[in-house]
């Protein structure tokens, strides 16, 4: 095959893939990626071929097994001052919140450039702040944030082309309040709401942002501890819910 020929230049392979990617077999793409990744950073055109291959594997073939390699490539290129923009976009396009832990691993790197980039990519996570230092604490905080919010995350598609501080995942705090898992793609509850839940949400959505955050966090916490206690709490009036959440959140 044309792409298999080691005499075919990266430039020609790239043009071919860009024009014929629908016809190229997954296993062949994967093989090409694995053979090429060892030469990451050697030339612009070779890296572009890697980027396109990676993007196709992730977006067209939903291959998430390459995400650890992608993250390592991003951080390697960043240290070398090379182009990372497209690879970062491809990584987030995998729509895999748990893969954020791969970036989180670099919070504890000895290389300050790694830590800076990790903080920049994870800037949307409340506990992450480059100025705080303490990489291992922030790594742990990321883990707990993901654990708490995983079922309520919606993928937004925001990228560095759009804004300087992309927020690729947002927490659907209304669904978190109801402890209803949401679709990663739409942010809507996977199971339809009951009339009671819709009514509850009506009251919830009239609250200010701080109260919403308080209630959603408390609701999730109590639901994880004891579903019966949660059930009793959520049946109370919204005012009572708030005062209970405020009182118990102080401890």
């Amino acid at each position, binding site marked *: 095959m044309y792409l298999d020929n080691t005499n075919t230049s990266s430039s020609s392979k790239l043009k071919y893939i860009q024009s014929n990617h629908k016809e190229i077999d997954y296993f062949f793409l994967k093989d090409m990626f694995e053979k090429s990744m060892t030469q990451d950073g050697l030339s612009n055109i070779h890296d572009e071929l890697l980027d396109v291959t990676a*993007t196709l594997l992730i977006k067209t073939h939903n291959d998430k097994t390459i995400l650890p390699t992608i993250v390592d490539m991003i951080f390697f290129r960043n240290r070398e001052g090379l182009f990372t923009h497209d690879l970062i976009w491809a990584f987030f396009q995998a729509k895999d919140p748990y893969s954020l832990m791969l970036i989180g691993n670099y919070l504890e790197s000895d290389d300050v450039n790694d830590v800076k980039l990790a903080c920049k990519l994870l800037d949307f996570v409340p506990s992450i702040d480059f100025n705080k230092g303490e990489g291992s604490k922030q790594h742990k905080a990321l883990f707990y944030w993901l654990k708490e919010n995983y079922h309520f995350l919606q993928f937004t598609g925001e990228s560095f082309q759009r804004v300087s501080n992309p927020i690729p995942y947002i927490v659907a705090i209304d669904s978190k309040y109801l402890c209803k898992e949401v679709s990663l793609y739409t942010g809507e509850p996977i199971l339809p709401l009951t009339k009671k839940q819709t009514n509850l949400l009506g009251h919830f959505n009239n609250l200010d942002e701080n109260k919403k955050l308080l209630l959603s966090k408390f609701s999730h916490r109590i639901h994880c501890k004891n579903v019966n206690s949660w059930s009793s709490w959520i049946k109370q009036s919204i005012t009572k819910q708030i005062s209970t959440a405020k009182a118990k959140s102080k401890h």
Partner: protein
Amino acid sequence: MVIISSNVFKVDTFINEYKTNDIERDIITKMDLSKERYEYNSLDELKFELALRKNIVIAAKKLNEGDMSFKTFRKSICNLHYWDRTDEGGFILKKGITPSVAIEDISINSSKYGTECATAMIIIYYQALLNIFSDKLFNEVFPKIALMNWHYIDDKLEDVGYLERHSNYLPGDRRYFSNPDVNPVKPEWQGENVIYLDNGIYFGHGIGVGNSDKIISELNEFRTEDAKTSAYILDSAARPDFKSLFDIYNKFHS
């Protein structure tokens, strides 16, 4: 609503300072009719924002008329007499080069430049500010310039990297069209950064000038074959920190 020094400002007389077709008239009218509060410490501060918005629009139109090409970061080009091109595809002002001269060169020798839509926005902001600030002030305020989308933005311009929802949108606003079903081999068309020119017309580098239907139609050409979602405009805009830029300008001139 326009508020100056905590008082509601009646724009009726002020608006006559501008000619019928001046874009400032349109902007101030939109501000006046808006639910949003446009607050200023002085009339001069308001005039400054109007002037800067006007110059953002002028700079956008000028860039459209020039020969700067659309290029991905990997293939970006610049006039190496004034700029160093980084391995990331951005442009850094060369040492010893006057910033205002380098920014002007992007218009004068536009064919020597090629970049993508976000970097084009930053160029527009710098060119707009160059039209309002004197060269001396511009060079003092921006001694180092890096051009690469929202990375390395000067602190004084960092607000342009953030999109926020507003009650209405004004000429000079940066807006964004998203293309969620973009063809994976064409990631540069995942969206389009645009400057709102007025009357529903936008400028986006790589597409040109057009209404939202045109921008969307062009972006939709770069989707996957089985695309389900059309490109669309986000209900948000980015705006420079007009107040702090005015403070810099005012301090220099007083």
